[in-house]
């Protein structure tokens, strides 16, 4: 581990220790509106708190001694800390003290976010400069996500206010997740169907490059919300005048304008990476392909596309994660998705409701990012011999 990495990791471990000593891990409110009381780790976790502090010190010790295999042990220890926190938290909030008042609510305290920060610092320092850093950290977070998921299912956390928010609207919750996901996914697929040919066209006809790229870049620089507004006006006018469009359910609000905006945003990374991927291919290889008697079509499908695929996939990765984020806006105009939960939370000043929308959003983005990253990694390794 390089020295700079060590410093980051040790700082992260200190943040863990300080969080356990000083910060609140739960906020208890008698009802949804009243401000609550903060409960620290010692009170909440009891003697388990000392075990947590001990494990954090162990991490510092492992970093300093630089023992063989310390990265693995640190990772496991970190996961252990997180698991323990979740477990102790689950047990603590099941205690009767919190159940006396029927409308009482327990939210996650600031300590939770602090240990997330600390953990992230430990991990990033730990794998700094490591070639497979991204892979290891992805595995770490995947396990972490799974752990949280299992605890949620186990019912230990059912007293948590975010879970109460969830149970209040579990029907719409899953529907909105599905809607959010399909809206993001289909907008990216549409972005691909339009964007890849545009990229290829720009690559071939360099003259057109500046004009088209200007337009696409322009779309990118307009803030999402304004673009939405710009799209909504002509769209509602159109659907008012055109019965066919109206019958198809196309109107100035809801799904259609959100979809169009998302597609425009997805275009940018797709077009850019398609051009970059095609440009990156050694000109001599294309000359060879032609010299062997391949037709232009064959060269495109058999040589250019496969060789630029990793870069194009990189564009898809950016497009999908970005699209998952941007889809929140659909919630503003009745397009549904997790945005509708988040904006409801904002309107009601209910942080737990906001969280309920944000957490699946992050998980979704992380999941898609990981899946595509893995595809790129595998493809490069398997077919191009490039290990990253």
């Amino acid at each position, binding site marked *: 581990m390089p020295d700079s990495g060590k410093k980051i990791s040790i700082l992260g471990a200190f943040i863990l220790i300080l969080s356990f000593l000083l910060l609140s891990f739960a906020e208890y409110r008698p009802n949804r509106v009243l401000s609550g009381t903060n409960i620290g780790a010692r009170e909440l976790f009891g003697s388990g708190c000392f075990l947590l502090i001990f494990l954090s010190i162990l991490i510092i010790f492992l970093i300093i001694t630089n023992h063989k295999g310390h990265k693995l042990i640190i990772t496991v220890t970190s996961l252990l800390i997180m698991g323990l926190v979740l477990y102790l938290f689950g047990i603590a909030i099941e205690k009767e003290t919190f159940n006396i008042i029927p409308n009482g609510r327990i939210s996650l305290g600031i300590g939770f976010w602090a240990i997330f920060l600390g953990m992230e610092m430990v991990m990033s320092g730990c794998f700094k400069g490591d070639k497979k850093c991204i892979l290891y950290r992805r595995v770490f977070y995947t396990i972490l996500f799974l752990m949280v998921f299992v605890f949620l299912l186990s019912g230990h956390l059912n007293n948590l206010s975010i879970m109460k928010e969830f149970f209040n609207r579990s029907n719409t919750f899953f529907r909105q997740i599905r809607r959010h996901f399909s809206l993001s996914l289909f907008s990216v697929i549409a972005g691909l169907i339009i964007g890849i040919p545009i990229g290829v066209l720009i690559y071939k006809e360099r003259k057109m490059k500046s004009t088209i790229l200007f337009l696409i870049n322009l779309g990118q620089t307009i803030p999402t919300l304004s673009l939405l507004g710009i799209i909504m006006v002509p769209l509602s006018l159109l659907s008012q005048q055109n019965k066919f469009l109206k019958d198809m359910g196309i109107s100035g609000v809801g799904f259609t304008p959100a979809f169009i905006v998302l597609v425009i945003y997805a275009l940018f990374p797709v077009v850019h990476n398609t051009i970059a991927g095609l440009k990156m291919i050694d000109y001599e*290889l294309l000359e060879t392909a032609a010299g062997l008697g391949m037709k232009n079509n064959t060269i495109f499908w058999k040589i250019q596309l496969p060789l630029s695929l990793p870069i194009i996939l990189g564009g898809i990765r950016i497009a999908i994660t970005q699209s998952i984020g941007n889809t929140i806006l659909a919630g503003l105009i009745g397009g549904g998705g997790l945005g509708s939960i988040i904006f409801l939370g904002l309107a009601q000043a209910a942080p737990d409701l906001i969280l309920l929308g944000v957490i699946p959003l992050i998980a979704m983005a992380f999941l898609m990012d990981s899946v595509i990253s893995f595809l790129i990694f595998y493809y490069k390794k398997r077919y191009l011999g490039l290990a990253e």
Partner: protein
Amino acid sequence: MIELKNVTKKYNDITALKNFSLQIPEGILQVLLGPSGCGKSTVIKLINHLIEPTSGEIYINNKNINEFNLINLRRGIGYVIQSIGLFPHYNVYENIVIVPRLLKWTKNDIDRRVDYLLDLVGLNRNYKKKYPFELSGGEGQRVGVARALAADPPILLMDEPFGSVDPLNRERLQKEFYRIQRELKKTVLFVTHDVEEAIRLADNIAVMKPGQLASLGSPWDFVTDDKEDYVKEFLGSEYTLKLLTRFMVQDILVQEKIKSKGYIHGFQVKKENTLSSALSLMISKGIDSLEVIDEQEKIVGSITFEDILKNVFRDTRK
């Protein structure tokens, strides 16, 4: 037959070829020899129409290449490119079979051909599944040669095909290629800047200076004194010695001298060794005669230093 007539090629303001003419008769291995940047690759790319001449014409079998179907023209020309140019996402097998697949050969024919080609270029058959990144430069180049030969084209354009093979394997490949060429009699344009390689393989050598032909002839023609200084300098003062690699001991073997023993110093040379290796042996041992043996190590004759002096360049010396 390949023919370039007064071909000029300009890349923007660089004139890569100026009024270049060259004829390669059918079945002839024409070596194009010249320093870096003189336009050798340009000549090759003009022939398979990867680039368009600025002026001048190119004919294949007396037909202007503009009249050929471009795709069919190229599929009938084996092309080995200078930078190897294997496709990184294809394994060795897939790289080799590109043209046969384009020509829709049957799988059986293709498989048999690949085995034959791998044997030919001296690569183990289990290399088929390897990807280019797993190959050394020399191995990659051999795959490149196999790819060019894959569909058995009548014309071969080879741009420094053995450039990154180690000396031992290069010599083996050169010999092997020489043998195949004697047998198959393809029309070959072989680009190199290695004089020895040119001597080993060429029926004809064309020496280039930047953008132009400097001199043309058989390897023997360059022994004479009447070449311009540029050519002499490029070929080097040891050209004649290098040319000895083109001769085998058996070419000047004298039978009757076997009997007069004592004249022989007891050192032996195989009859299919080159004269240059025979000469090396003489010089290193400080002797002027050698026994010649055949494959069964039976003495079949002898050669002397005088034999070499008298016989080798008899015709070209004036």
